[in-house]
């Protein structure tokens, strides 16, 4: 889209855009480029000349089973928390959109968890799900040893998935509800006239019409799960027990800042970036094009 009426003072145009360009160059493009450079070289980043090593860093990373563990954990974390929160959110949105008495209340309460910082959610969930205090520990009174995220990797994993899903439900709900409300009322009414009941209309009409939103949210949720996972994991499990919850961002942080191995961390960052770019690309290229209604 273009404006017909524009101004022609180019110095002004440059002055207006300069701050933003300086910032993104310094804090986005340069570091991203540098990550690429580090990923294919060795030696400390501060001072000293780096030595070109080609794919060596990637080979090191890829031959490390612990890295593949973190990839597996990250993807599993992303997929299960996304599926869980999207599933719950779409269900809630469909039923809130029935507009029975009191539906307004939900609109402004469901998204509250999204206002919290990931570590705050992590801390709350760590207490709630702790094996010897808090809310869930009661089950251990009945079946001793049933629940212990400190020692059981599955329990720990379930805990961080729940935390992430809980955080995102409200966000997804808001988008689904907005999408549902943008479907013309008369389309649903036409469905009712054609004989479709409430559930049938949800399945045949409302769900297909919000698929573009669904795909958009899938990408956002997966990206967000990579981002949030640090705060949640750092506070709840510290990547444990036995690396059962060591997600990619956490491993990058660990290798780069605790282990001081910037080259390895950079190579891992590059893989993660490519993963996210690929996701966004898929979203734009294929999915959006296929499910677009005018």
């Amino acid at each position, binding site marked *: 889209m273009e*404006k017909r*009426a524009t101004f*022609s*003072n*180019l110095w*002004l*145009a440059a002055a*207006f*855009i300069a*701050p*933003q360009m300086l910032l*993104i160059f*310094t*804090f*986005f493009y340069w570091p*991203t480029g*540098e990550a690429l450079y*580090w990923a294919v070289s060795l030696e400390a*980043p501060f001072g000293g000349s780096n030595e070109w090593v080609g794919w060596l860093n990637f080979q090191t990373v890829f031959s490390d089973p612990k890295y593949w563990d973190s990839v597996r954990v990250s993807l599993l974390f992303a997929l299960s928390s996304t599926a869980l929160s999207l599933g719950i959110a779409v*269900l*809630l949105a469909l039923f809130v959109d*029935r507009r029975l008495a009191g539906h307004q209340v*939900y*609109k402004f309460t469901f*998204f*509250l*968890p999204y*206002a*919290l*910082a990931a570590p*705050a959610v992590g*801390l*709350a969930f*760590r*207490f*709630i799900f702790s094996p*010897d*205090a*808090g809310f869930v520990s*009661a089950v251990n009174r009945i079946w001793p040893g049933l629940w212990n*995220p*400190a020692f059981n990797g599955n329990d720990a994993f379930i805990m961080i998935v729940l935390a992430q899903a809980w955080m995102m*439900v*409200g*966000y997804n709900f*808001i*988008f689904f509800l907005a999408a549902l409300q943008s479907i013309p009322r008369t389309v649903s009414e036409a469905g009712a006239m054609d004989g479709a009941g409430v*559930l049938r209309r949800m399945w045949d009409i409302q769900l297909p019409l919000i698929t573009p939103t669904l795909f958009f949210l899938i990408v956002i949720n997966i*990206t967000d799960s*990579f*981002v949030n996972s640090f*705060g949640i994991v750092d506070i709840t499990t*510290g990547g444990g027990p036995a690396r059962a919850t060591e997600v990619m961002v956490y491993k990058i*942080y660990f290798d*780069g*800042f605790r282990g001081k191995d910037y080259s390895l961390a*950079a190579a891992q*960052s590059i893989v993660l*970036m490519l993963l*996210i770019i690929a996701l966004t690309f898929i979203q734009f290229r294929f999915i959006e094009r296929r499910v677009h209604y005018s």
Partner: protein
Amino acid sequence: MVERNPILDTFTHALLIISLIALLIPFWIVFVAASHDFHTVNQVPMPLWPGSHFFENISTAWVQGNFSRVMLNSMIVAVGVTGGKILIASLSAFSIVYFNYRLRTLMFWLIFITLMLPLEVRIVPTYAVAADVLRPYREILNLFGLSIGLPEWNMLNSYSGLILPLIATATGTFLYRQFFLTVPDELTEAAKMDGSGPIRFFLEVLLPLSKTNMAALATIMFVWSWNQYLWPLLIITDQAHYATATMQLQKVVPGPVFGDPPIWNIAMASNLIVLTPPVLVTILLQRWFVRGLISTDK
């Protein structure tokens, strides 16, 4: 619509009410835990009703977590990021939309791409830049054989280090661009006929018109920057002076292994202190927050 669905209606109400309770119960548990003494909070099963030690725990947590200082820091960062973002985003969107120059498509894409990669996935190199902000420029100068001695500018342990990298994304620019594109051309033409230049037009027409966008963006950005965790954790080592509120959460957690009996009541009190400002903002400004969520897509 006339619809007789007593069973489905009951199911709907039940589903929504149960979900509401399930979604709010963590808040309640945090609050309840923050209101009991050390002994009671570690009981199994835990009490589900608040106790009488709430203010005592909060004030202990407040002092222990140095919250007078870190809340102020978080506030400075959140306000700085929000203000900076709005300023820079509106200016650059104005430049892209309202001036006709060949590079503007390139500029737009350069900005747009930054939407894709959040700070968390590129922390390692960003950290290195923050340690010596002018290094990129020094290296570029070196590349051209110029050895102008740029000074070192270390952003670690500083407010600018906490704020500037967080501003360097496209969120707001995009929002403003979308809005500017909806402003009718006639308005610009009328302003030009009235003899107003670009700066006047920007200040007196566009900014007032974009008030609602600004409010929405500001709400979102405030909450987002308050909640930042990984970045401050990395670049702030001088915790006494520059720690932010969310960073304090790491200190109330018992080590990475579940070992010694954690002091849950104080931990939850600290959590409550940290989460109150963003929750308050979203509740009080819920209209803007929801609107911002939907229109920024992050």
